[in-house]
């Protein structure tokens, strides 16, 4: 039995869109630069995110060099080390991952997968990108101002963030950081409104919410989280800028610095931490949920198996999204807040593990008795599950107050969040690029280079982060330029650090191979088939591949089923695209007829 949609209800968008309602580019400038087509905007977003991400990568090499072979590089001073840490973290979390998942994948996939012609407000969407670019440029500018960028840590905790002891604290560094964040948020909001409204109000006929691919559910929920979480960061950025520029005391208590009483007094540093983590914890899910969604689709397509427990998956995404707003203070167990708070937040934190675990079970059960093709996207998807479970389990450690207190601010936390929000989502990003590259360019990425990239990245990531858990246990603190003669840390920690540095440089090199692969394949890659992975979702059913302007032919597709009709018994092909009418499904002729 296939269910089909009820008759057309009133006030819905017509299947045929008059020419006049589409955006038309008239010149080179409006076609490739100030373009309002979401697909071009997606590529602009992704390109910018990758470029700034490379900066973040280089910064990580510099940090690793210092940790692996201390006292060797004269250009890495304690101050610049802190600046590298800070900028690395901020770039990776916000300017790379958030922008790539929502601005990049969001723009490209939403309108195609829900069967729309474009985002609902193309002009606002275009502005979103340009403001994002501005934010990136301001961020980059902070490297070149006197005093350099801020070294306050990506968490930017006051009071230290705006005091003279912190690199960039009294100069332009911190201010440019805050201004850049504010612009990022404004730009993001413009894009985010587009994503949400497009998904809610511009789906094609038959595309009910419960037929949307999980990719869209992930991006949708993440965008809602972002629209509600970024305001807290925005407000704290404004207040910290005022503290720094005007000398207000929102976050600044009375302080004596180098024997001198500063004019601050009466503010609340803890307030900043609450605001920051009210944003910060949802932020980790802003990055994780699109990855959850995309990986579900990758697993399903490449295992030729419907996603296990689709409804449960949707509700798990929504539940995680909602719960992520009530766990923020698990980042503040050592901040001196009331212990009852710790009790409350530990409880909510452990509860959020339930829907998360459901998702992991369902991914595994999707593979169960599937027809697993170990294509590169599939390899990355499986690697994601393993890595995410790993990071999730250390999360349970850190969620408990008494376990967290000794582990807080050690390398263990660094290992935890890199596993769970560094490596895991990045693996999905890679998998997704290998999966959708043929759609975006009409060419395949080179398979051999891809496999090399996968194995080096996957194994290498474990060589880097697994030992860090151990380093954390023995007490190696995070954000330290050098251990020197810290007598409670065994000497072997330094050897381990050197080992990690070697692994990190090798993994970094593999990323260059990946970038090379992309650049070469865009022009010289093997031409791909129309739907190389035999996927069912709408983005592969467009008129042309890569999809042209307006995405679909004159009529928008009509959707008859969910996106997971793989290995359907009795059909000729082993999959049925979402938009094939039930009467048009090619069936195997019954024997003897």
């Amino acid at each position, binding site marked *: *039995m*296939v*269910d*089909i*949609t*009820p*008759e057309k*209800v*009133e*006030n*819905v*968008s017509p299947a045929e869109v008059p020419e*006049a*309602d589409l955006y038309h580019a008239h010149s080179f400038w409006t076609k490739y630069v100030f373009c309002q087509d979401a697909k071009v905007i997606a590529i602009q977003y992704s390109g910018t995110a990758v470029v700034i991400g490379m900066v973040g990568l280089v910064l990580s090499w510099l940090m690793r060099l210092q940790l692996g072979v201390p006292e060797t590089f004269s250009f890495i001073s304690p101050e610049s080390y802190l600046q590298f840490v800070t900028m690395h973290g901020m770039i990776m979390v916000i300017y790379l991952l958030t922008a790539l998942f929502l601005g990049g994948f969001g723009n490209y996939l939403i309108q195609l997968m829900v069967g729309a012609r474009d985002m*609902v*407000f193309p002009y606002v969407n275009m502005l979103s990108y340009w403001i994002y670019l501005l934010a990136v440029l301001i961020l980059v500018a902070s490297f070149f101002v006197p005093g350099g960028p801020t070294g306050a840590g990506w968490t930017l905790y006051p009071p230290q963030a705006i005091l003279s002891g912190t690199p960039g604290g009294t100069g332009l560094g911190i201010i440019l950081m805050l201004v850049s964040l504010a612009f990022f948020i404004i730009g993001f*909001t413009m894009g*985010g*409104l*587009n994503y*949400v*409204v497009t998904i*809610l*109000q*511009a*789906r*094609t006929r038959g*595309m*009910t*919410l*419960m*037929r949307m691919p999980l990719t869209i559910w992930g991006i949708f929920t993440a965008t809602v989280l972002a*629209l*509600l*979480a*970024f*305001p*807290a960061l*925005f*407000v*704290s950025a*404004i207040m910290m800028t*005022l503290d720094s520029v*005007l*000398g*207000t*005391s*929102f976050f600044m*208590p009375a302080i004596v610095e180098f024997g001198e009483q500063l*004019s601050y*007094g*009466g*503010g*609340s540093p803890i*307030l900043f931490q609450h*605001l920051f983590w009210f944003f910060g914890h949802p932020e980790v899910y802003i990055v994780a949920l699109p990855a959850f969604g995309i990986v579900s689709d990758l697993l399903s397509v490449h295992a030729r198996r419907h996603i296990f427990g689709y409804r449960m998956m949707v509700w798990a995404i929504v539940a995680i999204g909602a719960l992520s707003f009530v766990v923020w203070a698990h980042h503040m167990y050592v901040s001196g807040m009331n212990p009852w708070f710790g009790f409350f937040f530990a409880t909510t934190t452990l509860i959020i593990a339930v829907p998360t675990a459901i998702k992991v079970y369902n991914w595994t059960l999707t593979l169960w008795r599937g027809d697993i093709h170990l294509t590169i996207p599939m390899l990355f998807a499986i690697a994601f599950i393993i890595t995410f479970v790993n990071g999730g389990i250390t999360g349970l450690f850190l969620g408990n107050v008494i376990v967290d207190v000794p582990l807080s601010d050690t390398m263990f936390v660094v290992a935890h969040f890199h596993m769970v929000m560094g490596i895991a989502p990045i693996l999905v990003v890679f998998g997704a690029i290998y999966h959708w590259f043929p759609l975006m360019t009409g060419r395949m990425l080179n398979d051999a280079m891809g496999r090399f990239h996968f194995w080096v990245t996957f194994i290498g990531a474990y060589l880097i982060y697994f030992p860090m858990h151990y380093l954390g246990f023995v007490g190696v603190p995070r954000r330290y330029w050098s251990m020197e003669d810290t007598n409670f840390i065994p000497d072997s920690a330094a050897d381990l650090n050197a080992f990690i540095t070697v692994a990190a440089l090798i993994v970094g090199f593999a990323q260059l191979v990946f970038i090379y692969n992309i650049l070469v394949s865009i022009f010289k890659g093997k031409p791909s088939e129309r739907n190389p992975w035999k996927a069912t979702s709408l983005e592969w059913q467009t008129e042309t591949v890569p999809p042209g302007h307006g995405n679909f032919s004159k009529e928008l597709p009509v*959707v008859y089923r969910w996106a997971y009709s793989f290995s359907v018994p009795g059909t000729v092909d082993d999959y049925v695209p979402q938009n094939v009418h*039930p*009467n048009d*499904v090619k069936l195997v002729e019954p024997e003897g007829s």
Partner: protein
Amino acid sequence: MTEVNVTDDRPSGMQGVIADWASDQRAFKGVPWGKAMMWIFLLSDTFIFSSFLVSYMTVRMSTPEAWPNASEVFALHMFGANIPLILIAIMTFILITSSGTMALAVNFGYRKNRKMTTLMLVLTAILGASFVGMQAFEWTKLIHEGVRPWGNPFGAEQFGATFFMITGFHGAHVSIGVLFLLIVARKVWRGDYEDDTERRGYFTSHKGSYNIVEETGLYWHFVDLVWVFIFAFFYLW
């Protein structure tokens, strides 16, 4: 053959709500894109103002110094007496009145009464502008009395900081609203939203619809609502 099950009966009650939401094409039936966007934007903006107000309450509690007495600081010396909060009362009254004229504008818009819609929009804009003007007057007065973001003669320094920040942010919202009202008023007057126009609507790019008036109205009512909270928490407390 695959059995095809076509259902057309819509469930009632809560089930119906869920079915409508989850049905195809539009979660909110009959809601234009621009209106949906405005609602979601306002939800996001609510979080901004909530963060501001929560921060204000926190620093008010964290500062060891006494908080200035709002009814004295915001009193005006008129007719030989200090009248507490008189200016704020007038400002609040004006803003709430402007919400009324805005609602009328929306109503006239849906009746396609071009002249009255324009008139009401302009009236709303004038009321909004006078609100901003009075706010400027209040700022000037306080600045003359020595209130600064980093300190003031009446007590805790956070008083000035939160005052300028929150009313400033709200005032910016009102000013943007006034600007938007004037733009929309001009477009209404020019007949951009009439049925026979060739011009395409603002934001929605649909012809012949006064939706944008309602969307501007949503924003305006929101800004008013926020003011009520600022008034209650900052001036009355």
